């Protein structure tokens, strides 16, 4: 009995401690995020995705609490389907997740806490999220989201001008492209025999680089901006 009690202490106390550390970090992160009511920023989107050739595209990103997000571009812009709102939505209510401290890691030159987020319940598409948070300014240096449908998306963040709001200057999305394929028979390029076969990507991941400049924070954004 004594042994069992000790064993329980050994496992539960650290878990509880890890959970507390993670929650404090997340609370700090949320508190800083709450300071942003809305923002807009100019984005330069570059992509390096197998099977997709696209030149850099200029766009404008709009965000408004609590979960309004929109990208406007004159031309066609390719963005990851997940990664912008998923985390903020998940982290907006404590009941939605369980956060666990999973150790330290160095991202760039920044020692970061690794926080693992487990969504409550099993109905969400998101299975697991990991955040690498720089505890000095509570900046997310890296995040990793694993979903049921789209595999894993990793995002690397760099900060410069908007540190105090925790808004990045650049983001690099690394997406899973294993499932990409060119539909058979659609590309009717008779010059190329291979077009009749399904083309698969040569690399398993693709990258999308977003540079963000000209932030306009808390200037008041109308809801109409988010209407498509």
């Amino acid at each position, binding site marked *: 009995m004594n042994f069992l009690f000790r064993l329980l202490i050994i496992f539960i106390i650290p878990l509880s401690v890890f959970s507390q550390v993670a929650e404090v970090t997340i609370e700090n992160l949320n508190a800083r995020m709450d300071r942003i009511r809305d923002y807009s920023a100019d984005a330069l989107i570059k992509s390096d995705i197998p099977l*997709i050739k696209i030149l850099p595209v200029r766009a404008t990103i709009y965000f408004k609490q609590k979960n309004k997000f929109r*990208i*406007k*571009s004159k031309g066609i812009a*390719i963005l990851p389907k997940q990664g912008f709102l998923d985390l903020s939505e998940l982290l907006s209510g404590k009941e939605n997740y369980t956060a666990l401290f999973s150790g330290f890691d160095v991202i760039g030159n920044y020692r970061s806490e690794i926080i693992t987020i487990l969504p409550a319940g099993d109905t969400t598409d998101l299975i697991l999220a990991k955040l690498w948070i720089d505890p000095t300014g509570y900046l997310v240096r890296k995040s990793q989201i694993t979903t049921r449908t789209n595999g894993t998306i990793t995002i690397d963040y760099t900060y410069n001008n908007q540190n105090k709001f925790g808004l990045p200057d650049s983001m690099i999305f690394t997406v899973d492209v294993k*499932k990409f394929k060119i539909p058979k028979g*659609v590309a009717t390029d008779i010059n190329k025999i291979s077009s*009749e076969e399904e083309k698969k990507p040569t690399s398993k991941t693709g990258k999308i680089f977003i540079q963000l400049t000209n932030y306009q924070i808390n200037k008041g954004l109308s809801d109409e901006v988010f209407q498509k």
Partner: protein
Amino acid sequence: MLLKSTYNEFIKIAAKPRSYLGLAAITILVGVILFALKVDGLSFISFVTASFEQTLSFEGNILNGNLVAFIVLQMLIIHIPLLVALVTGDLVSGEAAMGTIRMLASKPISRTQLLLSKFIAGGTYTLLIIIWLGIMSVLFGKLLFGSGDLMVLNSDGLVILPQSDINWRYLCGFAVAFLALLTVSSLSICLSCFTENSIGPIVTTMAIIILFTIIGTLDVRIFDKIRPFLFTTHMASWRSFFEEPVPMKDIYRSIFILIGHNILLLAISLNKFNNKDITS
């Protein structure tokens, strides 16, 4: 005299009801495609982008006039040869069937000029067909769907071309498509020199196109050596202008081969027509 004879050919083409068949067919076909895309274009696109859209989202107006024009061209360009041959295949043999070739050949004009005027008129008609296809697809496409970046599905993946970088591609694409259709025109006129009925050259032209296309698409090693020299292999070269980077070397080769075909067909036609006994 060549210009006068060419002008005569224009009058004849303009007066034939069948000349308007091609223009009407293009108008109806493009109209149907534009209507279908307007009603259910997004599902057509999602069929293409489905595998990408699980992971990525495409922002911006994808179903725009540029894409619509591209879809229209891709769908129709393989059918246009029939519309061209319908008129050009009749230019010499139709006159033989009517007996008017006898009247023309006894006038003070050389047979070379007479045939050249038919080639020029056939080429001009082909140009007209291409221009009309361009107007219908690009202009009406943009009017109905607006403009925007062009997302093209090539055999090696999706290419997204910025709006500002598209017009020249369409112009060059149409120019190469014209050259390909000009080859069809030359082929049908050439065949037209060998017969004295209207239907023969039209049917034979289409049969040759179908045969060459089958040879071109069959992945059989025995055809590997001849495939690059078949004009049908280069009929879709207009599409290369929508690749990134543009494979100029391939396009130049296609242009060279298509021009070569035209010169060869013209030479065969001139030789046949100049030495032909007009017995009709």
